[in-house]
């Protein structure tokens, strides 16, 4: 369920990074108040535990397949929401850096999708509500199951929205929604059942672990509303800034050029440019680099072009030739670098 860099736009990635950064800062402040700084090793080792636990296959009865644990809900229950969120954030950063799961720009999205909903919504409002009058195995079971399912449903809904806002895929909202939610319902149920089993076990054999977390004031009602207000402000400011940044001119770079150079297009009057222009005017093969689409498709293309930026088929063709040449050029440069390196090694 990790969002990948390849599927998000800079606006969505930037907004979510700022949002998750805000929640992380808030959690750090809270954790510093609640637990002794010297006890961070526990959080660190628990993060490593979730990593390891994600690799255990749990056989799903009656299906012949097996499922994994995500661990967001389990962390919130065992460590409390703030420490749980921070632990999830560090796990996701390691996954992004070392394993390419998610990415550095999609990091904000992933922390929000997998950490925020479980630690700051499902845990305080669902798990805590079910266990408000003390805990027993039945309550733990119901609370873990429902909070895991809802936490994951919100997370996957978030993935759908972020993907669509980024506009990299053609999937319509309805289709993507209907594809993602049922899959994550199934995943959520397995997650919930495993979480319930684990929490029940811990409660039976080492109740002090759960009691310690439960005693800590999870979230006072005033602070969560503050968090949500701060979040909304962050989203509006960052999102607003980025979308203005993106829409006032075709792209941010042109905007920054306009700011620095006073013009959105650099005036190139150099000799090289003139030579290139001459070369260009002499090319008969792809004049202006534009093919006409044939009549049949024109109407369809016109329609879709209203909605989306178009593919210019002529540009695409020259793109292929030029693209191949670019790759050859890059390969040749690599070969030369390698050659120089070998020579140097021989000399030394």
């Amino acid at each position, binding site marked *: 369920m*990790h969002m*990948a*860099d*390849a*599927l*998000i*736009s*800079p606006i969505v*990635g930037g907004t979510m990074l700022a949002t998750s950064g805000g929640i992380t*800062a808030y959690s750090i402040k809270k954790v*510093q108040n609640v637990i002794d*700084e010297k*006890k*961070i*090793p*526990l959080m*660190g*080792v628990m*993060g*490593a*535990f979730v990593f*390891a*636990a994600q*690799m255990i296959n*749990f*056989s799903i*009865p009656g299906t012949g397949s097996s499922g994994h*644990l995500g661990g967001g809900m389990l962390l919130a229950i065992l460590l409390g929401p703030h420490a749980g969120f921070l*632990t999830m954030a560090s796990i996701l950063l*390691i996954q992004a*850096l*070392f*394993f*390419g*799961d998610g990415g550095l720009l999609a990091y904000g999205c992933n922390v929000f999708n997998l950490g925020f909903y479980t630690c700051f919504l499902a845990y305080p409002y669902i798990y805590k509500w079910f266990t408000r009058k003390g805990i027993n195995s039945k309550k733990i079971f119901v609370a873990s199951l429902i909070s895991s399912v809802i936490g994951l449903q919100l997370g996957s809904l978030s993935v759908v929205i972020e993907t669509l806002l980024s506009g990299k*895929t*053609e*999937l319509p909202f309805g289709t993507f929604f209907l594809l993602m939610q049922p899959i994550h319902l199934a995943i959520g149920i397995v997650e919930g059942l495993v979480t*319930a*089993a684990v929490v029940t*076990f811990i409660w039976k054999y*080492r109740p002090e672990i759960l009691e310690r977390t439960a005693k800590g004031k999870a979230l006072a009602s005033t602070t969560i509303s503050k968090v949500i207000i701060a979040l909304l402000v962050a989203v509006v400011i960052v999102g607003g800034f980025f979308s203005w940044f993106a829409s006032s001119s075709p792209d941010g770079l042109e905007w920054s050029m306009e700011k620095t150079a006073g013009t959105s297009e650099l005036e190139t009057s150099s000799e090289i440019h003139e030579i290139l222009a001459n*070369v*260009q005017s002499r*090319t008969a093969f792809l004049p202006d680099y534009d093919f006409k*689409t044939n009549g049949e498709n024109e109407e*369809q293309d016109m329609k*879709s072009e209203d909605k989306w930026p*178009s*593919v210019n*088929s002529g*540009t*695409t063709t*020259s*793109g292929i*030739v*030029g*693209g191949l*040449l670019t790759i050859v050029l890059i390969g040749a440069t690599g070969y030369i670098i390698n050659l120089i*390196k070998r020579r140097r090694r021989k000399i030394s």
Partner: protein
Amino acid sequence: MSTLKNSLYHLRLLDDLGKHNSFIHKVHPLIKLITTVFYLAVVISFERYDVSGLLPLIFYPMFIFLLGELPITPILKRLLIVAPLIIGIGIMNPLFDNSKVLIGNIYISRGWITFLSILIKCGLTVTASILLVATTGINRIAEALRMLKVPKIFVLQLLLTYRYFSVLIEEVSIMIRAYSLRAPGQKGIHRSVWGSFTGILIIRTFDRAQRVYQSMNLRGFRGEYINGYNSKITFKDFLYLMMWCFFFTIVRIYNIPLIIDRIFTGVIN
């Protein structure tokens, strides 16, 4: 079991690679982090129909691979493991965008172009992140994060999670091996022991964390993880950053393959 071993192997490989002493490894970690983030931002800022414009960006990972003296196969293998997820979503594009474009003499669905763009972006972004770690190592990335004023509590948490990951992976693989020897031919952990299997691991983890905490205290831990690095950004580092930023900006503004094509076809004619 294979995923466990693969992850452990991959982690140790990156750990080892991070300790090399090449030209790229010597660049200041903060500079490499900023370069990587700038690169990623440029890659994902490309329009979804723009495939050719992306291609010159392949130069960056190739340069790092060569000058960082890194093995290509294990890093690309990791890319193959991640790719199916992105292909899964990307492959929907040709299904939902049927409008056709003429390329040469062939009509193809526009969706294939956006799919190709996602694939290239996936390859470039995943490789760039892994290359950052392979040329820097987690300790120096932590140093860069501290320079960016990321709170030490988070950086410490990150380092400890990373450090204990391999320890717990070994613990888990011992448990899984013991379990599978007693339950031959069974796929995964049976429902009846879901709780106890993972629960035991948690209890072991807590106990281990306790021991870790005590031994760290005995060795003088006072809330700060000291890794011994204290390097300064030099003019060389700055130049490295400027050159890459200049290259990425040029690639973003001008479609280099189209320019090459113009020159090439111009020469032919």
